[in-house]
């Protein structure tokens, strides 16, 4: 197992190198000039050139790359062109809302979608099954921002139960934190629920036709025990894989959800950084997301062994 983890961690290095080169080149080769953005609309060409020099953007592209990589290897992620803060500080400021959103969404999504998927499989062809599958199609098809606006209209404007937007830090007011997390995490989890419930249903259906399930039933085990202990556990690997892959959906969805609900998280930071061509911030945030994605998928791979003793690394 340790060997496996070390091998996987070593494999992360080329992945991150490719991401770093790709992100760096993408930013430099696509149109947009942070100096012009910083200088504002009324600036003259000389003023823009001065700012470009101060930011080191007048250096050849490979020199800029070497400086950046060198700094990264020393743990220096650079300074934002706009905020005049280190990127590490910016990320530290913005990570809590995104983390909270991701955790709440995962809890919502897993708590709802796994039982729904199992029930849909168990009652295959029933009304419940059709409703769950119908919801799943809807969840896939409707864009997150539309769901967000609908939820805001119903729960904030019409019913007045929840606030429209904003974020309260968990340490400041726990209730305020919770009431501001409900709508964003519900919005973000809809697509996730659709995905996981569909995969859960398919996996459980496949397992329900296996001989050992028939044997379990023949032994006189209750439906609950058959479903939870035998069917779901054996169907867990594809479900876990989808949850791992879904982290990418979560990261992409956070960008939209945080904008709709005014959450000051990393998703919004990414959008702001991209719109203003804040190269150091974009590069570091994307690299960080890549690391998170790789690490979570590594953890998912490791967790397979908990559900399927046949899997050994």
């Amino acid at each position, binding site marked *: 197992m340790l060997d496996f983890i070390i091998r996987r961690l070593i494999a992360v290095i080329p992945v991150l190198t490719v991401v770093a080169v790709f992100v760096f080149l993408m930013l430099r080769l696509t149109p947009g000039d942070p100096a012009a953005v910083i*200088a504002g609309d009324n600036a003259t*060409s000389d003023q823009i050139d001065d700012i470009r020099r*101060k930011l080191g953007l007048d250096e050849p592209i490979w020199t800029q790359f070497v400086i950046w990589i060198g700094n990264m290897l020393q743990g220096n992620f650079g300074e934002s062109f*706009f905020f005049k803060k280190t990127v590490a500080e910016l990320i530290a400021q913005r990570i809590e809302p995104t983390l909270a959103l991701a955790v709440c969404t995962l809890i919502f999504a897993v708590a709802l979608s796994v039982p729904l998927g199992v029930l849909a499989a168990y009652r295959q062809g029933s009304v419940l099954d059709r409703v769950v599958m119908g919801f799943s199609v809807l969840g896939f098809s409707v864009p997150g921002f539309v769901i967000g606006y609908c939820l805001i209209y119903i729960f904030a404007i019409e019913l007045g139960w929840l606030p429209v937007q904003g974020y309260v830090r968990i340490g400041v007011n726990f209730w305020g934190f919770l009431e501001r997390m409900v709508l964003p995490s519900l919005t973000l989890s809809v697509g996730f629920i659709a995905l996981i419930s569909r995969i859960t249903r398919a996996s459980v259906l496949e397992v329900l036709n296996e001989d050992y399930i028939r044997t379990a039933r023949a032994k006189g085990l209750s439906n609950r025990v058959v479903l939870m202990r035998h069917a779901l556990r054996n169907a867990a690997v594809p479900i876990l894989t989808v949850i791992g892959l879904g982290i990418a959906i979560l990261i992409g969805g956070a960008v939209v959800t945080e*904008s709709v*609900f005014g959450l000051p998280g990393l998703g919004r930071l990414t959008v702001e950084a991209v719109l203003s061509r804040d190269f150091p911030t974009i590069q570091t945030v994307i690299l960080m997301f890549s690391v998170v994605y790789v690490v979570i998928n590594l953890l998912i791979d490791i967790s397979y062994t908990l559900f399927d003793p046949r899997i050994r690394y």
Partner: protein
Amino acid sequence: MFDLRKSAAAALAAAALGGLLGIAPAEAQTLKVVMHSDVKILDPIWTTAYIQRNHGYMVWDTLFAVDEKFDVKPQMVDKWTVSPDNLTWTFTLRDGLEWHDGKPVTAEDCIASIKRWAARDSMGQKMMGSVASLEVVDAKTFKMNMKEPYGLVLQSLGKPSSNVPFMMPKKTAETDPMQQIKLEDVIGSGPFVFKADEWKPGEKIVYVKNAKYKPRSEPANGLSGGKVVKLDRVEWLAMPDVQTQVAAIQNGEIDMIESPGHDLLPLLAKDKNIRLVSFNPTGNQYVFRFNSTAKPFDNAKVRHAVFVAFAQEDFLKATIGDPTYYKVCKAPFVCGTPFATDAGMADVLNGNAAKARQLLTEAGYDGTPIVLMQSTDLQVLTNLAPVAKAQMERAGFKVDMVSMDWQTLVARRVKRDPPSQGGWHAFLTSWVAADILNPVMAGFFNSSCDKAMFGWPCDATIEKFRDQFAKETDPAKQMAIVEELQKYWVNNPTHVNVGQWYAPLARRTNIDGNLTAPVPVFWNVTKK
């Protein structure tokens, strides 16, 4: 005898009872506003972006300021004199001016601030070209010694929009003009104090009332007069999504939106708890900018043909829609301002395609496609370029409209490459009226070749008019120069003004007191 324990117990009981009965102590008046953008940079001299200008008006004060009619009035200055030969200006500061850290505002601070501002601002640079020296007379008085008479001293020091000559402490003002000031240096003498500890970029910026601020005795008028703060705290919240802004103001979570999108105004107007208020009666001006160095726009006659081909109302209908929020106005220095005039404009902006076609033939236009940049992500600009394309094509131009996001356009417009190789011929943008009140202030009139703004017009005659205007001290003669300049400029345009438009703010009905001014300011605003 005073019993501490009994008193404490009584206070606690009263507080508990108050809590049970829902009686709260007098609540601090906090105004929650969504501005047009989040504040990412804190130095209003370092950048010309409007959100930093607005932030500047909260924290810092100015020597002079304009009133509703754009007349310049003293603000931090108590009295000023000018010598009969117009070569020596003497300014004396008001009594009781203090920085937020309690230190007095001095003449030295003001001189350092003027120098830093002038290093960044084109109007400041122009003024400093005529200044021989700035000299401290005493702690509250300084002199500006001129090399030659200069007619825009007060207009420059009272410049209402970017870059505004805000007065900063000497230590801060000595920061390299090409570098931003530090977070701990965001200390002004203005009506609000910036709360550095509560600033969370991407979330909110907070200002509290400057209790020590001594407003002028005159009533507030535009950006001038007494800056009386009637709120305890103002929070500018970052909320990028316009639909969410509307939902939040409808729900009472925020009190004001500085600039709601025009397509959402009918929705807001229907809500009985919300009022739309036009605080800036001169508004903004749409502008079509030529790249005067690129063929065929290096030919003045071809540029004039565009002027003749355009009709303003089509642009305004396509972008703003509701005539309440736009005005057909031919005056390049904006209708409703001191130098507004239609001189020389009778034959242009009438949508005369036939005449434009004839002018193009006379100019020998060879059918070179015009690379017209269209920005697609800013709603107030998106529909301008298609209208320009249609009107130009009607006049015989070939137009290649290239769509891109605004930041890509911003980066491309500074490129001098040929239009077919990544350069450009034209784009459309918008100016706040307060930035284009006269030929020196209006950046697109600058025709000093390489030193001009992108588009780089090179026209000695326009420059001569601008210099004459700057050096003329008699307003009537200044007006005459503007008229002459305008008559010349129509035939040798650097840009085309394609209409005036307004953006009201939305506020809840319990909010009042927004001043009529070219910039949204928060003194005088009340919350019931």
